[in-house]
């Protein structure tokens, strides 16, 4: 082929692929909104704050962004009501080991950001992030563990390396807090024993469950 021929192949071939790409883009644009909840005014304001505070400078969302801090696509799924709102305003008061800086986010702004993150958590992402396939840590088969799992304590707490980091690590909690009565009061109403606590109260837990859970916790030495 002459150079002119390959040049034309380059120019027109590329245009051809670009046209296909545009057609797919048009189709995708029609479908995107149906794959996510409606965008309310509050969600939109939350998104604008997301940009203002450059959250993507540390976090990923939908898996894209910076890899310095956790992905936030589904962050609202496992956090107790109200936790994130508090955390965003004063990260280190809620979680002393947090690497997240205090950005001057107001409580009202925090609410909007959480609304935005709640929106992203409901986007149909073709199953991403995938559920972990390997069960790592076998917990002892005792009633307290069942209660621990029922109320999803591991969303925030870690035992033996498994679980979240929003709350303190409980692997050795009994060495710090050996008193079973303290635990019972704390679980029902955390603020009654630790005024600054960001942990939600669990008034719905039954007396029997509370006893089983506290029994389990004081074994964690």
């Amino acid at each position: 082929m002459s150079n002119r021929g390959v040049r034309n192949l380059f120019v027109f071939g590329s245009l051809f692929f670009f046209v296909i790409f545009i057609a797919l883009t048009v189709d995708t644009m029609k479908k995107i909104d149906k794959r996510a909840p409606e965008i309310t005014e509050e969600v939109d304001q939350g998104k604008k704050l997301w940009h203002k505070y450059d959250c993507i400078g540390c976090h990923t969302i939908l898996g894209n962004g910076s890899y310095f801090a956790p992905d936030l696509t589904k962050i609202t799924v496992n956090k107790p009501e109200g936790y994130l709102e508090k955390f965003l305003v004063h990260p280190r008061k809620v979680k002393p080991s947090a690497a997240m800086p205090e950005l001057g986010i107001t409580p009202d702004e925090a609410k909007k950001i959480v609304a935005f993150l709640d929106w992203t958590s409901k986007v149909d992402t073709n199953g991403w992030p995938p559920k972990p396939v390997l069960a790592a840590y076998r917990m002892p088969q005792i009633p307290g563990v069942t209660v621990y799992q029922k109320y999803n304590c591991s969303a925030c707490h870690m035992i033996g390396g498994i679980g979240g980091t929003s709350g303190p690590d409980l692997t050795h909690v009994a060495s710090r807090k050996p008193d079973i009565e303290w635990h019972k009061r704390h679980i029902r109403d955390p603020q009654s024993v630790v005024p600054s606590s960001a942990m939600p109260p669990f008034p719905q837990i039954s007396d029997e469950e509370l006893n089983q859970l506290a029994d389990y916790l004081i074994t964690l030495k």
Partner: protein
Amino acid sequence: MKYESQKIAQHFYTFAILLFFVQVLVGLIAALQFIWPDFFLLKFNVIRDLHINALVVWLLLGMMGATYFVVPEESQSELWSIPLAKFQFWATVVAITAVILGYIWMGFDPQANKYIFGTLLLNEGREYIEAPRWADWLIALSVILFLFNNFMTMYKSKRWTGIQGTLLGGLTFLTLMYLPGMFYTKSMVKDQFWWWWVVHLWVEGSWEIIAGALLAFMLMKVTNAPRHVLERWMYIEVALVLFTGILGTGHHYYWIGTPKYWLWVGGIFSSLEPIPLLLMVWDAFRTTRKHRVISNRLGLFYATSHAIFNFVGAGLWGVIHTLPQVNKWTHGTQITTAHGHLAFYGAYVLLVISMIYITLPLIRGVTEFNTSRGYRSFWWMTISMVFIVLSLTGAGMVQTYMERLVGLDYVTVKANYNLWFWALRAIFGLGFVYGVFLFVLDFFKLGREPVEAAAPANVSETTA
């Protein structure tokens, strides 16, 4: 050098490599913040913004400088307007400096980043295109002036060579692909959809076109190989780049809320993306073998290394995580960072440096220069980068396993299991900074110090 106006390239090179040095210094700070988050006055996000924006900007400036050299050479005429080129240079310097100061300001006072007329004043909070809207317009204006100047030069001379046509085509595509990043969308999904038009169609589209054209130019300059053969292969390479790369954008549309068919489109086309990159490696070796009269060994050495690491970093490190079955597990992990570093280094850092080593001696009018510092700088940078990338690949594998397969918490994996990888990255980062320092030094000294007898490079003007 044949034309007075080619000297303008040096302005661009100088500002570019100063930003390169800033880029790696802040990169080192960012690496240390992985170990100590409060290590520096400015928080990680601002440091990272500086790191990646300095990167993009200095590479663009380097490509602009290179273009100001190539276009007069290929058109066989002076540039259409030297004052316009100088104005465009200084306007760019002012705009970039203002953006950088804005980021730093925001680092000290996050509230300073206010909405004014609906757009953010200092930082748009979108990765790589953080520059605020007012700066977007200034940058776009500067690039349009730049394109216009070069286009007029070609137009007046009526010499439409394949190399400069492809170069200008790539630069025009680059400019157009800046636009999809310049509007607000309420949906985060659409936001990321258009954002990838910019980011992906830059690095795997227009920039690779520019690389293909510059590679052909460099091979022609240093080996005196015939133009028609080089241009033919160049067309084939850049054609394959776009045939695979445009629809290859789909590899970013697997999990962001876009329809499922992108898994097929992205998976198939992006898997083919390494082919043109391999062709470029073969092109460099074939040309060098055939035409043994080499006028600038160091320049050719860098150009060939660029071709090789473009293939390894973009092609190989890209293809390993491009299939949806793999990407589902590795998406947004340190595997991505490992690939990002080696790809940018091989494809574009080495490209700009090789253009500098091939054109700067001609600009400075020297026929011989010392090459030993240039080689040392290459080895310091390249070996350090390879080890940075291996450390990050290790961190990414651990992260993928622990977090995505076993289900451990992100923070636990980062703070416990990956700590040593962060330390390794910082140590090799220091080595990289030293390599860049040598290069900066060499840039200022090239042709300005007495030539040692030991290893001079002969630079002669070829006549192609």
